[in-house]
Each structure stands twice: as C-alpha cells, then as structure tokens.
C-alpha cells in the first residue's frame, strides 16, 4: 500500500509531500490569468514538456527551453509550488525507457523542487520501422496484464531513483476494451501501487468517461481501488464525439465529476492536491470568471477534506 505517512526509509528516503490544496494545470491560454489571479490557486501544475523544445534522443543539444514560458513559470514559482505532470515518459512503452528525458525532468525537479510529479499509465512512444521510437499520436492505454505490471513497476523504480520524490501514475481513459486482460483495471492499479510504491493520480474525469463509455459504475470502481494511494486528483470536462464521451478537457467539469470528487475526498486520506485542467482553446468560452468558478468549487471540496483530516 502506498502511504505518504509511511516511514521515509520505506519510500526511498522521501519525506511526505505537503498538502497543497487546489491547483490549476497551466496551458497556453493562461499566462495573463496566472499573473492576475494568483490568489485563485494554491499550486500550479505544469506539463514540463511544453516548456522546452525536444530535438530528439541523440541530439547534442536535445532540449532547449522556451523563454517566454519559462519566464512565467519562474514568476509563479517565486510564490507558489510547482507540480509536474509529465507526458513524455511513456512508461508502458515496450521499447526502452528514455533516460535522457528522465535526466531533463530531474533538471527541472532540481530547479523547481516539485513536491511530487506524475505521468500517465499508457504509452505514447512506439518503436518504428526505422528502429527509433516515435510518437504514437495519442496516449494509448495499456492492457492490464502481468507482463505490463512488471514492466511498469520496474520503470517506476528507475524514475524514483533518479528523482527522489513521490511519483504518481494517472489512470487512463480508453475507448476500446482490450479482451482477455489478466486482471481488471482496479486490481492492476492496486497491485502496481503496492508493488512499486508509486502513488496514484486519480483522474476522475477519465474514470467518468470510461464508466460512461463502457457501462460500469464509477462509484464501485472507487470502492475497489486502494484510495490510500491517491496523492492527487484531476478534474476536467469533456464532450461527446462519435457516440462516445471523450477526455477533451472541454471547459468546466460536468456535474457527475463533482459528485465523484465528493465521494472520493473522505476516502483519500493521503490526498495532497486537486488539480483542475482544461484545454487552452476553451479559455475564450470559460473566461477568467469561469476558471475561477471551477477552482472555487474545487476549493470548497478541498475544505471538506481538510475539516476531516
């Protein structure tokens, strides 16, 4: 069981991360918002991959930071914690783990001292005909098999050795049901957090989308997952496409996601933050007031958690 209150030695000499509160995942529409609404969030979530150019493995100057983005980040970091939500580890990739990417993440960690960081339980890199890895074009969900469990657990160990802070993996959205899986998703998540000591980033919108698309009960899912492993919760919106509900991050959270949040909060004793995420193209529709309204509602939920802990 992952428990942030476990002894430091049990988790590789890592101290418990602080309870931060409500966060906002940064995107291209937000530079002005974050500067004029610093009071609306307790921490800033970032996708570090959007702050640099990546010229690819083997390039002598593989990474180059984007000045304008870094400038805003440095400004926020002076007064708010930064939490990293990576998209490039591709932890379920059957090829090799990209160690130079991990080095780059470690550099960012050293600079911004994230209290924890996370990535996705999926793969985005795949070995191509050329023998090099390339981007799959979307995060592809992994089958919940024993072989995959072993692969991911081994990689979590590498990540934790390189970046000595809690590392979380996010439950994925998936649009196809892969048949003949060794175990259900809930069991996979539990076995992963128990065997690898990674934490869980519980994306309630992904859960809502999966439950809606594949016809299962999201509350039962929450009952079956070991929620003591949850350190961060993501909330977001989505929309219908081709007869399915997608994780498009289209504006505000739908009501069922708030209901799931209310249900999850008293059951997640190690929760350290709730992050609202949206796609930058919806900022025009939501506006400053719309984003603040989502953060305020998340804060009210967080306060209910705080009164219990």
């Amino acid at each position, binding site marked *: 069981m992952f428990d942030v209150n476990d002894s430091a030695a049990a988790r590789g000499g890592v101290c418990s991360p602080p309870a931060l509160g409500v966060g906002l995942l940064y995107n291209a529409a937000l530079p002005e918002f974050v500067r004029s609404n610093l009071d609306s969030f307790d921490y800033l979530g970032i996708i570090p991959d959007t702050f640099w150019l990546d010229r690819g493995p083997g390039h002598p100057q593989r990474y180059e930071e984007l*000045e304008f983005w870094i400038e805003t980040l440095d400004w926020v970091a002076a007064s708010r914690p930064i939490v990293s939500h990576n998209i490039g580890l591709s932890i379920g990739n*059957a090829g090799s783990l990209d160690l130079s990417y991990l080095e780059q993440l470690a550099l960012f960690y050293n600079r911004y001292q994230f209290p924890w960081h996370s990535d996705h339980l999926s793969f985005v890199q795949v070995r191509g005909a050329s023998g090099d890895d*390339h981007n*799959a*074009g979307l995060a*592809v969900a992994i*089958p919940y098999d024993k072989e995959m469990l072993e692969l991911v657990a081994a990689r979590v160990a590498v990540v934790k050795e390189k970046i000595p802070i809690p590392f979380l993996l996010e439950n994925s959205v998936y*649009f196809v049901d892969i048949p003949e899986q060794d175990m259900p998703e809930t069991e996979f998540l539990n076995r992963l957090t128990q065997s690898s000591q990674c934490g869980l980033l519980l994306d309630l919108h992904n859960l809502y989308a999966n439950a809606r698309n594949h016809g299962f009960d999201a509350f039962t899912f929450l009952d079956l997952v070991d929620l003591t492993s949850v350190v961060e919760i993501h909330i977001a919106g989505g929309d219908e496409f081709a007869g*399915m509900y997608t994780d498009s991050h289209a504006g505000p959270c739908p009501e069922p996601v708030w209901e799931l949040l209310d249900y999850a909060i008293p059951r997640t004793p190690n929760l350290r933050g709730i992050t609202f995420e949206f796609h930058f193209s919806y900022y025009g529709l939501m506006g400053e007031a719309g984003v603040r309204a989502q953060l305020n509602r998340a804060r009210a939920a967080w306060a209910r958690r705080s009164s219990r802990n």
Partner: protein
Amino acid sequence: MTMQGFQKAMCDLVASPDLCMLLQESPQQVLERYDLSDRDRRRLVEVVQQPGMFVNCSLYRANRLSPLYNLMPHTCFLLNEALLDEATEFWNVFDESRLQYNEEVEKFGNFLRRRIELGFLKDPILAEVLEYELALNEFRYTPRLDVLSRLEVRNLVARENKLIRLHPLVRVLLFRHEPKRLLEFLEERRPLPYELAEGEFWVLLDGKGEEVVTKLIDSGVGRLLKAIEAGTAQSLSADDVEMLIEAGLTVPLT
C-alpha cells in the same frame, strides 16, 4: 516478447482507418506484418470491430492536425477542403512523427512547398501565406534573448571584417498580392476569392522585440536583404554595411 509487436500494430491501426478496415476484411494480411502471440491477434481482430477504434483514429488525426491548425491557421484556412487530403498524404510520408509542434509545422511546410512546386496546389496566395507563417513559426521557437546576447558579443569582435548576413531575428518575404489587406482578410476568415492589388511587395518581419513586427519595406531594400540572405549580394560599401548593421537588419558574418 510480443508486447512490442502488439503496440506497433495498435499504433499503426490508430494512425490509419484504412488499415483498420483491411484488418476487418482480411486479418491475416495485416497481422502477418507483426510479431504477435495468438492472444495479441485475437485482441487486435476484436478491437477494430469496436466503435472506440474509430474514436482513437479520429483523436490521432485531431492531435496531428492541432499543431498545424494552431500554428499555421491561415495556410490551413486557404487549403480549405484540401487540408485533410494534404495532411493525410503528409502523415503517410511522415508517419514516424515525434509530435514536436515546431518540427511538425516545419515538415508540413516543406511538404506543402514541394506540393506547390509540383503543381498539386495552385492557389497563388497560398505560397506567400505559407512562407509568412513558417517565418513566424521560426521566431516562435527561437530563443530570442539568447540570440540577442550572443550577437552582442559577436558584433564586438567581428565588426571589422565588413562581411554581413541577415539578422537571425529578421526575415524578408516577397508577396505578389497586397499583404496588409490579405492578412486582414485572413484574420477575418473572409471567404475567397479576394480582390487584391498585385505587384511586388516586400515585407520585413522583425522578431527582435517581444512581439514580431510586420512592415512593408521599399522594394530595393527588400531585394538587397533577400540577396544578402541568399549570399548573392554584390559587394557593398563600408557605409552601406554599417548602415544595415545599425538598422538591425544584418549582423557581421563570423
């Protein structure tokens, strides 16, 4: 280990609705391309029957279209109904993308240049707008402050040799259609055709400040700067060289 084969097959299917259809119609023809276990084969045959595979394929296309549409909106607007066909052809050629936005735009831009050269795309405005957006994209990903500070040092040591090149944060573009109105129409998403004056219009893009400044320049200066950029400028007087450097249009060649 067949995990790699399964993942490769899944990704190829997600990237190609045609391959999904082929797998439905003639599974063996597709599956024999990959190193797969029996379970992998059964899984792939079943997932392509599910409606979610169509969603996966659409999301793949949306994710690859997104950088193009966000960073070259006018080009995409001008391509109009041809956009999806051109993009699909591009993805067939560059199927192993790293999905880095700057790279994706540059490669699609080069692909379109070739398509224009070969006569597949005939809109005379398209080439001009494409070059304009590719130049803006270059600035977007150039570490401006770093370039400027490196130039400052270089200028001190190299100013005496009188050889120059275009400033790395300056571009000069030739339009054959009146550019100000053209770009206004595109901003407004006004449907084609446009009534625009035709001629020789030189546009200077200056990316040295926080915002890129676009301005019309004299044809003589435009031609000269283009020649300097191409390395074909005739010998310039010391005064001209000094003036171009002072104006921030060129830098000493080191």
